[in-house]
């Protein structure tokens, strides 16, 4: 393909400094500029770098545009999105970094191109290009947010599933939050590990902190109970609040094979009894 430099690229090269200055002042005066989140010098550096990459990308317009230039422009935008997502910019504030370049760019085109047809052609191809890059920025922003969320979820999983030994042969698992499939897996593993490690014969699963018990949560609970049983431990499900008990009945979930108790204290009393321990008050006259 013949190296024919696009009009936009030519003009941008010629007026690079001017466009950069105008773009910067435009960005900093706009509603979406966050002086509280980002230093001016960083913005200047990012803008300078992006403008250079944009010139390269727009060298050749249309299909067959320089793949290497595209790649570096995308990489740069991914980095910008990542850092801005981290700094607390919103997606639209982040995308404005790219879209705000339109204003100084079109001003330049309007000033320099006298032929209306040429002007509209160049504006169209430039706006298409910038839109693509802007959308890419939003996608990259989204992706980096999702990876942060996924990591936090993972950390939360690890943090929120303590299995505690209450007494000889009695372990308890206080569940807090939503019991999704991933969480159930972790919970089940922890519980079985602890059952084996302590030789427990009773495991109390307390669901006081589980806000909603739907069929999926019920199924996960039943699976955990079945797995513990295979390891030689009977389960008691405690913390079934009255409204949850009613809902479970309406759902038609069958908990008949499982011992259920309203409170952890009730469950503990049953567990002590079953393991042959007894609680007596010492020094208190009946």
């Amino acid at each position, binding site marked *: 393909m013949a190296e024919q430099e696009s009009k936009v690229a030519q003009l941008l090269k010629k007026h690079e400094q001017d466009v950069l200055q105008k773009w910067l002042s435009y960005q900093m005066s706009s509603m979406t500029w966050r002086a509280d989140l980002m230093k001016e010098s960083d913005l200047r550096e990012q803008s300078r770098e992006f403008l250079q990459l944009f010139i390269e990308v727009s060298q050749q317009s249309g299909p067959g545009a320089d793949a290497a230039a595209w790649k570096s422009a995308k990489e740069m935008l991914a980095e910008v999105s990542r850092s801005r997502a981290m700094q607390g910019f919103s997606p639209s504030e982040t995308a404005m970094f790219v879209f705000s370049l339109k204003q100084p760019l079109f001003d330049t085109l309007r000033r320099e191109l006298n032929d209306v047809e040429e002007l509209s052609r160049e504006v169209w191809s430039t706006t298409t290009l910038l839109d693509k890059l802007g959308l890419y920025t939003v996608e990259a922003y989204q992706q980096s947010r999702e990876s942060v969320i996924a990591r936090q979820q993972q950390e939360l999983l690890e943090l929120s599933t303590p299995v505690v030994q209450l007494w000889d042969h009695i372990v308890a698992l206080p569940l807090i939050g939503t019991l999704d499939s991933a969480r159930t897996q972790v919970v089940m593993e922890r519980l079985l590990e602890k059952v084996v490690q302590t030789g427990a014969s009773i495991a109390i699963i307390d669901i006081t902190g589980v806000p909603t018990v*739907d069929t999926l949560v019920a199924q996960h609970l039943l699976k955990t109970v079945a797995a513990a049983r295979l390891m030689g431990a009977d389960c008691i499900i405690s913390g079934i609040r009255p409204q949850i008990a009613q809902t479970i009945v309406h759902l038609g*979930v069958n908990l008949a094979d499982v011992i259920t108790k309203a409170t952890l204290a009730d469950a503990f009393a049953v567990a002590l009894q079953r393991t042959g321990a007894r609680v007596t008050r010492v020094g208190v006259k009946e």
Partner: protein
Amino acid sequence: MVVLKDESAPIRSSIDVMRVRQIVREWAVSLGFSLVDQTKVVTAASELARNTMVYGGGGELRMEALNSDTRRGLRLTFSDQGPGIADMEQAMKDGFSTGAGLGLGLGGAKRLANEFAIDSRPGQGTTVTILRWNKL
């Protein structure tokens, strides 16, 4: 009967399903639902939202807060453009699941609501509407 509030929420991921539970609970609280009624409507919403995501391939929830002289209501409409349900009688039956579930979601949601309607066309999608009233 007056519609006090009317909003929609997307159902694409399990995070959306979690959000649905939270927002439905907020609405139920603001309509003055008792704890039992809140729990019922939130649980039904959880079932239907999950079906929308898992079997419907994602969709939308429309929430309407209704008001009449004697009572307040929450109407929830779950819609998707998924494969639809070929055999409705079978799908509504307790214990029937084409997935790995307990097969209690649809029947359970029906029992947890005051009114329940399901409309499904194979190849076009499914819409489930439930309504839960709260006496004033």
